[in-house]
C-alpha cells in the first residue's frame, strides 16, 4: 500500500469509504486522523468492499430463484460489487421450488440473486445436489475449496445450531418418546381401579 501521506484528499476519502469509515471532508486538520483510521483498518485486516473473502464459496441457483448467500458480520452487502457473476450456471431446474421452500425457512438466505454482492464468492459454478438437504455437506462433493468450507460451514452459516445437530436432537427426542410410549402400561394390566 502506497504511503497514505502521498495520496490525494480524494483518494483518502475513497479509502475511507472502502473501509466503511464514516468521515467528513479530508482537510488539513482532519487528514491525520483519517490516515490513522485507515491504517488501523488495514492493520485489523478489515475487508474492504472490494476484497472477497478467500475461503468462502458462492453457491448459485437459477437466476430467478433464491440465492444462497454467505454473510460475514463485518460488511454489509453494498452496491460496491464489481465482480461479475457472469459465470452463473443454472443447474437442475426441477428442484428449485423445493429448495426455495427450504430456503424460505432460513430467512437470511431468502434473497434474490441481484442482491448478492461478490465480496464473498469465488466464481465457480456449483452443481446442487438434489438429495442433499444440508447444503454444506453437499459442498464436500464439489472440488472447490470444500475442505476449507466443511469445518467452517457451521460457523459461517447464520444458524446458531447447525442442521445436523438439529436432526440428531430430533432423533433423540423421537427415540425417547418411543421408549416412553413403549413402556407405558396398558389398561388391562391395571387392577383395583374401578
Amino acid at each position: 500500500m502506497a504511503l497514505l501521506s502521498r495520496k490525494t484528499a480524494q483518494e483518502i476519502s475513497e479509502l475511507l469509504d472502502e473501509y466503511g469509515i464514516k468521515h467528513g471532508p479530508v482537510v488539513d486538520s482532519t487528514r491525520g486522523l483519517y490516515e490513522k483510521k485507515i491504517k488501523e483498518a488495514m492493520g485489523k485486516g478489515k475487508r474492504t468492499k472490494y476484497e472477497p473473502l478467500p475461503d468462502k464459496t458462492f453457491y448459485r441457483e437459477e437466476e430467478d430463484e433464491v440465492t444462497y448467500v454467505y454473510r460475514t458480520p463485518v460488511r454489509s452487502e453494498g452496491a460496491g460489487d464489481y465482480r461479475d457473476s457472469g459465470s452463473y450456471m443454472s443447474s437442475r431446474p426441477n428442484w428449485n421450488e423445493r429448495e426455495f421452500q427450504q430456503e424460505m425457512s432460513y430467512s437470511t438466505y431468502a434473497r434474490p440473486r441481484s442482491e448478492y454482492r461478490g465480496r464473498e464468492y469465488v466464481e465457480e459454478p456449483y452443481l446442487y445436489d438434489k438429495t442433499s438437504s444440508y447444503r454444506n455437506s453437499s459442498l464436500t462433493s464439489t472440488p472447490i475449496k470444500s475442505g476449507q468450507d466443511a469445518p467452517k460451514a457451521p460457523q459461517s452459516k447464520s444458524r446458531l445450531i447447525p442442521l445436523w445437530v438439529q436432526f440428531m436432537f430430533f432423533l433423540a427426542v423421537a427415540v425417547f418418546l418411543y421408549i416412553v410410549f413403549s413402556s407405558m402400561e396398558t389398561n388391562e394390566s391395571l387392577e383395583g381401579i374401578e
Partner: protein
Amino acid sequence: MSSTSQKHKDFVAEPMGEKPVMALAGIGEVLGKRLAEKGFDKAYVVLGQFLVLKKDEELFRDWIKDTCGANVKQQGDCYGCLKEWCDAFL
C-alpha cells in the same frame, strides 16, 4: 444522564465569541495549552473542527484524544459541550 458541570452550563448559555479554548468543558489548562500549540487557540477553532468532523461523536473523540491527549471523560465533556452549543446556536 450525567449532570453537566458549571463550565458546560456557562459555555452553552451564550454565543462563544472569542472565548479561549480553555472555556470548553473538559479542557483545562494543560489540554488547552496543547490545543493552542496546535493552532486551536480559540473555542471557535475547535468548533470548526467539530463541524468539519460532521459533529460525529466518535470522530471528534478520536481527534481530540490524538490532538491533546484528552481522556474519555474529557472527550465526552468537550463533545457534549460543543454539541449542545450547536443545538442552541448553530
